[in-house]
């Protein structure tokens, strides 16, 4: 009751003298706000942006630290090293690649391929040194885990660079460019963080949708290895002989589908009726995860070396190339495979069979390539 009485008194006092003798204070405050925002508006806006970036930077630091921690723990658990791998992991997190010079672009694909090969060999050697007890599959999974941790470290350092540069120069435009793309970068970083566990445990990821389609088609048939790190099986589909190709699993591996396609095309002297490539495709907002779409062209991501090789092989013999895509977003692509994507594999197989029926005749030879990371997917 007392509280109510006090509140009523206060209310009456304010009601009786809305401005009273202190109205000049309000006027000064109003002008102060006006001038502050007129001269320092942009700076205030910049501080708001810096705070926003700072908040995301905290989150990125947490993700980067978790990445490092999970990698070290997995190496210790799987690889049983004699010495502490922490120093080696830290050294690898800052590992970088210098792409080839493109002033004279002729032959750049082979230069890029060479550099990527050197990097792969180096990474494999590092992992073998860090985890001597790991088998082939575990080594591949550890390589992928290290790559993800390294990517998270890179994202954190880039954002930190722009944040500190923005603070140092007090330039709105330095901080604005990073603040504008921050939501997309955070989505990517979150996807990589969920991918860490998938790679450490060897779980199939969304990117492996194409490899899973190929695995379902080739399971139970005789399998042989083809360059590089790929497997192929000759599978009868609708009266045609289909060479089904995928990266060798179940370790984390994308192989070199370009080399595999070239090998099969050359083995058959170019007598291939069609090539069908199945891959995961980034969906647009509004599209459903696991939608299956069809098109033409070499459906393969990455640095472009394998796409170039496939296009080169098909051009030589004028082989038509068809694409079947399973749609998913960036988060699904590197995190454990979603149920919708796993179920979309059956739809994709139906689509592949439909393309084979429509575009080829009985007795023809076709190549079916399941593109993607084979982690957690055998054959």
């Amino acid at each position, binding site marked *: 009751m007392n509280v109510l009485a006090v509140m009523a008194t206060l209310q009456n*006092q304010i009601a009786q003298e809305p401005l009273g003798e202190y109205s000049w204070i309000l006027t000064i405050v109003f002008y102060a706000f006006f001038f502050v925002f007129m001269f320092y508006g942009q700076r205030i806006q910049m501080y708001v942006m810096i705070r926003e970036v700072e908040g995301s930077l905290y989150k990125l630091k947490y993700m980067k630290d978790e990445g490092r921690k999970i990698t070290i723990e997995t190496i210790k658990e799987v690889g049983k090293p004699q010495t502490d791998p922490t120093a080696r992991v830290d050294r690898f997190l800052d590992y970088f690649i210098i792409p080839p010079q493109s002033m004279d672009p002729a032959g750049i694909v082979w230069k890029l391929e060479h550099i990527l090969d050197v990097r792969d060999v180096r990474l494999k050697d590092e992992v073998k040194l860090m985890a001597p007890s790991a088998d082939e599959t575990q080594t591949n999974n550890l390589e992928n885990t290290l790559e993800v941790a390294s990517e998270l470290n890179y994202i954190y350092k880039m954002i930190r660079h722009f944040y500190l540069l923005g603070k140092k120069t007090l330039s709105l435009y330095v901080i604005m460019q990073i603040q504008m793309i921050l939501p997309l970068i955070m989505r990517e970083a979150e996807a990589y963080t969920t991918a860490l566990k998938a790679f450490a445990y060897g779980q*199939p990821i969304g990117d492996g949708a194409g490899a899973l389609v190929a695995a379902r088609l080739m399971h139970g048939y005789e399998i042989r290895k083809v360059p590089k790190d790929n497997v192929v099986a000759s599978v009868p589909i609708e009266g045609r002989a289909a060479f089904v190709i995928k990266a060798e699993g179940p370790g984390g591996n994308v192989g070199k589908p370009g080399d595999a396609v070239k090998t099969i095309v050359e083995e058959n002297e170019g007598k291939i009726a069609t090539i069908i490539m199945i891959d995961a495709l980034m969906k647009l907002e509004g599209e459903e995860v696991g939608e299956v779409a069809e098109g033409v062209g070499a459906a393969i991501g990455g640095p472009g070396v394998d796409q170039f090789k496939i296009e080169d092989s098909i051009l030589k013999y004028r082989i038509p190339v068809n694409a079947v895509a399973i749609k998913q977003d960036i988060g699904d692509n590197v995190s454990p495979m*979603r149920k919708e994507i796993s179920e979309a594999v059956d739809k994709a197989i139906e689509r592949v069979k439909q393309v084979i029926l429509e575009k080829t005749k009985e007795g023809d030879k076709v190549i079916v390539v399941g593109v993607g990371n084979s982690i957690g997917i055998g054959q």
Partner: protein
Amino acid sequence: MKMSQAPTNTTTRVSSFVLMIIFIVLALSLTALILAVSASYQNQVVAGYLLLMGFLGVALSAYFLFQTRRRILSLRIEVPPVTTTVECKKCGFKSVREFQRGDYVFKDMGACQKCNEKMLITAIYREVKERGKEKSRF
């Protein structure tokens, strides 16, 4: 290590200085509220101001405490459980269990409980429950 566990690294540690300030403000606000009650018998205007200050202080400290907790929660990365489907190709018997390290699609598993035939891992996936997904008209 489970990633959905409460984060423990240095990024997520709440500054003890900030916590101390929040609790000092909270204590002062509560004192103001008590003083407001006792002052209400002598001077109702003073009591009113004390009441206002007390409520504002309590609201502010509660807000900052809530914000600190929210920051820690926002750092947590939820990883939905991954399930493995083991299937018998002969009789179609299916069993779904949690993913175990070493599982992979098309891995041969033990004998089927029903027909004693070899079982196989046919799928490994995670189920995502989309929270608050608004239905778009487009």
